[in-house]
C-alpha cells in the first residue's frame, strides 16, 4: 500500500511519520510538499503535527487553503483514509472534514508529556488491531488541544460513535485528572461519520520503536495497513 505524508510550511512531524511508515513498517511512503501534485495510487494520507503557517490566526486555519488540501478533501470524499495528528487534527477541523474545534489548553500550558488514551471503538480502519477499551500510551505535545463542540454536535458525535480515543489513566479510567487539556468528555481523537477521516492529538508516530519507550503507535498504523489489505512486513 501507499502512504502519503503531507508537509506544510511549518510542519515538524512529517519526517517522523515518514520514518514510521517507510522504515519501521516498510511501506511505500511519499513525502508530499503542500504544492506537490497528488499521486494517483495513495491509500492513506497523513497530515502531521507541527505549526503549519506558524499557527497564524488559529492553529490549522491557513493550511486549509494550501493547494494540496483540495486533493485531500476530494480523496476523503472518495472514501480515502485520512489521519490528522496534532496540528493535522487542527487542520481537519478547520477545513470542515471533522466537526468541532481545538482551542487553548485549559491550563494555558503547552503540554509535552506521556498520555494514555482508551480506544473506544475497534471496528474502524484506524483501530482494528486494538483490543476493546485497550489503553495506548502515546506522547502529546500541544498548546491547543482542548476539543470543543456545541451540545448538539457532541450529541451527534456520541450517537454516531465518532469518538475513537479518550484520555484516561494508565488503567483506562476516563477521569478529569487524566484530562491534559480540558477537552470535552476527555476527547483525544474522533472520526467523521463515514469513519474514513480521523483526527487525534496524541502522536502515534513517536511510539513506534522499543527505544522510544513503547510501540503503541503501531496498533494504529497496523490497523490502517490491515484495513487497506496491505501486508505488515515487520
Amino acid at each position, binding site marked *: 500500500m501507499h502512504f502519503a505524508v503531507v508537509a506544510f510550511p511549518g510542519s515538524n512531524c512529517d519526517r517522523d511519520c515518514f520514518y514510521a511508515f517507510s522504515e519501521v513498517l516498510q511501506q511505500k511512503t511519499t513525502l508530499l510538499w503542500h504544492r506537490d501534485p497528488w499521486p494517483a495510487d495513495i491509500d492513506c494520507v497523513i497530515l502531521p503535527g507541527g505549526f503549519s503557517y506558524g499557527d497564524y*490566526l*488559529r492553529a490549522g*486555519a491557513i493550511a486549509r487553503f494550501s493547494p494540496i488540501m483540495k486533493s485531500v478533501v476530494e480523496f476523503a470524499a472518495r472514501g480515502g483514509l485520512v489521519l490528522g495528528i496534532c496540528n493535522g487534527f487542527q487542520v481537519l*477541523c*478547520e477545513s470542515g472534514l471533522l*466537526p*468541532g*474545534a481545538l*482551542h*487553548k*489548553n*485549559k*491550563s*494555558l500550558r503547552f503540554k509535552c508529556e506521556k498520555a494514555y488514551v482508551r480506544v473506544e471503538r475497534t471496528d474502524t480502519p484506524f483501530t482494528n488491531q486494538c483490543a476493546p477499551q485497550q489503553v495506548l500510551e502515546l506522547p502529546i505535545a500541544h498548546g491547543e488541544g*482542548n476539543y*470543543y*463542540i*456545541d451540545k448538539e*454536535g457532541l450529541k451527534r458525535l456520541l450517537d454516531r460513535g465518532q469518538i475513537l480515543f479518550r484520555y484516561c489513566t494508565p488503567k483506562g479510567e476516563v477521569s478529569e485528572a487524566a484530562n491534559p487539556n*480540558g477537552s470535552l468528555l476527555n476527547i483525544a481523537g474522533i472520526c467523521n461519520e463515514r469513519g474514513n477521516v480521523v483526527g487525534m492529538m496524541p502522536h502515534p508516530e513517536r511510539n513506534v520503536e522499543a527505544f522510544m519507550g513503547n510501540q503503541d503507535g503501531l496498533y494504529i498504523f497496523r490497523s490502517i495497513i490491515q484495513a487497506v489489505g496491505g501486508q505488515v512486513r515487520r
Partner: protein
Amino acid sequence: MVKVIVTVRLKPGVLDPQGQAVMKGLNALGYEAVADVRFGKQIELRLNLADEEQRNGHGRLKQSIDAMCRDLLANPVIEEYTFEIVKEEA
C-alpha cells in the same frame, strides 16, 4: 478606501483560559472587583471600495465582509464576530 475593524470573540459559554488567567492576575494586583475577563482579537482590513463593488456589486460590502469572517477570520464553532466599517479619505 474603507477601513474595516473586525472583532472576533470566543462565544459565550466557551471557556477562555487566557481570560481566566488575566482575571486572576488583576485580582492579585488588588483589582478584586474584576469578576470576568474575556479575550478577543481585532483585525483591521483596508478595502479598495471600487474593486470591491466591481467584483461583488454595489452595496454588497457588508455581505462581503460577513463572508470573509465566516470563511476565515472567525471559527464559527468557538467564535463570534462583529465588524465596523469606517470610511477613509482617499
